């Protein structure tokens, strides 16, 4: 493997020569050349930037979306068979931050993620990603937006007819013209990052639920996305692996990736999330930092934030 690999897709250049600080709780991350994850055109870490969208130095895109706003859901409403799942939901996610969506089962959290990636279209309202209105895009335009996003499904949704490694390599094979050995190398590194370095040649059916989830996360990270949408990453994982995944998400966030996490795991949300929001009966009933939600007087929010052991 050469020190430097040049990606053909989108003019993105990958530099494997940089050596960031190793993660404290996830040693396998260190085995991955961390620079491989980093796009040179990616924004600097969130901590270095001014995040408030209403400040005068924030530019705006043609759609009216502040340039630092990676995702915006504007008054999104969605119903299935007469049942309203999302009711006038508005969410803003700033670039390079982690946004955690909390809520009881069946409150529309996964539906919200599917709106962001364009798998579902809202009945009313609109969804903006990097200024592009995903809810009205189709075909190649929608595909171009999706190439910049990674999505971990709640069920992992691995392609069960190909190996775990080929699942991770799949987006690279589809969207780059890199040589086979480089794609395999990158897929192996993505798997190593989630602790599955020995499972490249296994079929998805040979993995446990937690391992499938991690493989799904590796696939979601395959194209080094600007935005990572993660649906219940710690479901089915032991506490140690769950903490390792949290650290991986934190590392990605520090490298400039915008992350939206749907979770029931409050400690994980506190650890990873810059901002938290709680969905209940299709509406956002609380939004802010973990401290803000701790202070909420809504009984459900208080009950949720105190359920530290939930996962």
């Amino acid at each position, binding site marked *: 493997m050469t020190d430097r690999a040049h990606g053909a897709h989108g003019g993105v250049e990958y530099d494997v020569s940089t050596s960031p600080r190793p993660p404290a709780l996830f040693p396998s991350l260190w085995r991955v050349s961390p620079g491989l994850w980093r796009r040179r055109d990616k924004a600097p870490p969130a901590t270095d930037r001014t995040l408030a969208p209403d400040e005068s130095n924030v530019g705006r895109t043609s759609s009216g979306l502040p340039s630092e706003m990676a995702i915006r859901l504007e008054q999104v409403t969605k119903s299935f068979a007469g049942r309203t799942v999302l009711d006038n939901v508005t969410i803003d996610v700033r670039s390079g931050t982690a946004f955690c969506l909390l809520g009881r089962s069946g409150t529309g959290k996964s539906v919200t993620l599917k709106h962001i990636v364009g798998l579902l279209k809202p009945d009313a309202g609109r969804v903006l990603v990097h200024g592009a209105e995903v809810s009205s895009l189709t075909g190649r335009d929608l595909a171009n937006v999706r190439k910049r996003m990674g999505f971990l499904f709640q*069920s992992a*949704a691995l392609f069960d007819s190909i190996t775990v490694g080929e699942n991770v390599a799949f987006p690279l094979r589809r969207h780059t013209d890199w040589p086979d050995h480089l794609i395999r190398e990158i897929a192996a590194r993505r798997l190593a990052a989630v602790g599955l370095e020995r499972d490249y040649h296994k079929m998805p059916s040979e993995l446990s639920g937690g391992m499938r989830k991690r493989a799904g996360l590796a696939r979601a990270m395959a194209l080094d996305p600007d935005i990572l949408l993660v649906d219940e990453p710690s479901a089915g994982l032991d506490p140690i692996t769950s903490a390792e995944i949290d650290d991986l998400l934190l590392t990605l966030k520090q490298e400039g990736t915008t992350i939206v996490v749907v979770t029931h795991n409050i400690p994980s949300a506190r650890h990873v999330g810059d901002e938290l929001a709680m969905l209940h009966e299709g509406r956002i009933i609380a939004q802010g930092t973990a401290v803000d939600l701790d202070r909420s007087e809504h009984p459900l929010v208080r009950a949720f934030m105190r359920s530290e052991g939930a996962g």
Partner: protein
Amino acid sequence: MLERVGTVVLAALAWVGEVSLFGLRALGELFLPPYEPREIARHIYEIGWRSAPLIATSGLAIGVVLSMHTRASLERFGAEALIPAGLAIALIRETGPLVTALLVAGRVGAGIGAELGAMKVTEQIDALEAVAVDSFKYLAVTRIVACIIAMPLLTTVTDFCGIVGGWMAEFAVSGMSWRLYFNRAFSLIEFHDFIPATMKTAVFGLIIGTIASYLGFTTTQGTEGVGRASTRSVVLASILIIVTNVVLVRLIFLVFPA
């Protein structure tokens, strides 16, 4: 009562319309990039090559049975010499294409319906879309095209194996040589017997691929839905093949009068 019947008929027509649009969209997208040649080749292998043993065995058996029936009929008139030609005409014009289509509908239609149905209920189709891959093109169009290409090839295999089976049955009874049997079999066969009858199976391939892919893509209700998609793929494709065959045979006779 009349209202119920009307509702059922309208629902059936709506379903036929949806499936037809699905198939037409697949044919339209065939000419738009990306062309997915690797996936098409992989499905031709899966649908065509891996169906070949089933098709060859069935063709052989059908040839033997047809030969026995033909002999029983023609023997009464002292026309045993026409057995090879009669068998070849029946096989190439009708029996071969129809039997091949029904066998492929059973094997491949069920497989496509179940595979795509399982992908639908386990969110694998959504996962394809999420990685910016056109799932319709990647999953449905490639399978439909593979069915269209594989069907005429498999039909040729059935025809050939059927003639071999016919010769084996004839050899057992009369000791007729292969060369003589072959010459007599093709003495009355012309290209316009073989080409239209074989090419019409491309339409059967379109029917099998479209119905199975449509039912797979519209699967709901978990594993039960997958089973239902698989079964309905076979049943509906088989019925439609038999009905369409009537129209196609009429069309062939119009274009190539006997």
